[in-house]
């Protein structure tokens, strides 16, 4: 085989098969890449700064918030004084949000593609995710 690479469009035309649309794949892939890159950057900054001032130190030397870092006031307070712990926590938050953002991205792309079945599927998945969050609180 001299030319093993076939574009998804060609394959679709040739066999009538429904490959995932390229725009959808690229958008989902990009959301995942960007989410991972931002998260990893924040985590690395956290680790590097922790090596200098310790995880619970602060770069500005200002007083740290009394709330734990996984609460919103604790996180914002920690970020305000450049606490390594808070910067890494933000990185973990971005990591957790990334898969949810990719479901939202697919929803938008399925709407653009006018793929009614998968608009409903994406909405269903989002609804169940929201239910799961509400049930536990």
């Amino acid at each position: 085989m001299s030319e093993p690479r076939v574009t998804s469009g060609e394959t679709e035309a040739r066999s009538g098969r429904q490959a995932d649309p390229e725009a959808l794949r690229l958008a989902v892939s990009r959301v995942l890449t960007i989410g991972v890159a931002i998260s990893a950057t924040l985590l690395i900054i956290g680790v590097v700064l922790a090596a200098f001032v310790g995880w619970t130190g602060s770069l500005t030397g200002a007083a740290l918030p009394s709330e734990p870092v996984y609460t919103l006031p604790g996180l914002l307070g920690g970020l305000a004084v450049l606490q390594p712990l808070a910067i890494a926590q933000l990185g973990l938050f971005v990591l957790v949000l990334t898969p949810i953002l990719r479901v939202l991205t697919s929803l938008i792309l399925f709407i653009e593609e006018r793929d009614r079945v998968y608009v409903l599927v994406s909405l269903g998945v989002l609804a169940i995710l929201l239910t799961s969050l509400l049930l536990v609180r």
Partner: protein
Amino acid sequence: MSPTQDLTIFAISIAAGVLGALAGIGGGMLVIPALTFLYGVDIRVAIGASIVSIIATSSGAAAAYVRDRLTNLRVGMFLELATTSGAVLGALLAAIVAPQLLFLLLGIVLLFSAGMQVYRLREELPPETPPSAAAQALGLVSSYPDARLGREVPYAARRIGLGFVAMGFAGLISGLLGIGSGALKVLAMDGAMRLPMKVSTATSNFMIGVTAAASAGIYIGRGDVDVQIATPVALGVLAGAILGARLLVRLRNQQVRLIFVPVLIVIALQLIARGLGLDIGFGG
């Protein structure tokens, strides 16, 4: 944690990421025992770190898998309906069901499934069959470019009803027992729906992130995600997953199965041990 310990956790997490990307699992089977046994980390904190590990494996590898058409987005999203609703039901039932026996039963089911895999060890691709009307209506018919075979491989999901129910069961189990259940997802796509092995593990990998993200909020809110432990885990798993995704493309489906089966057996034994009350760490 000393810097040496951090580096060891980082290294183990790289291995968990590579294995997770190849076998379609979250890596809890390595991360949890490593944290609890090597460093005596509290089991709740270890599970919190493993949730982070699942999301890191998934997002780290899926970016490449989705771009390279190994992950089938429609198959993944359609089956996520089953896994997420199963997980909600499982979380609700968790309060009234005794998990001990469930761990044991699930372990035996996985061990049996591993035995069944022996029959497929020599199979590179599932036999090609004409796509059903249901598969076409749901868009579960596609193809993937196989760099190793040097050609485009067409496939269609079979036994969609059975696959959907198996996925609901996988979701139920993860909600009930707090495990990622990536192995069950691969079994549902490979065994029930007869998707190519690489498509099965890459799509499982893609799916596990969403379910884990739903429960991650709860774990973080409870303070179970310890930043100092979760950070080296997340960074190691991300690096490993990106590496693993590059590796999978170059492997044959047979080789992927040869990696998956031992992983399945280890998870099965961990679950059985936990069901019998032996504390040797557990996976999924």
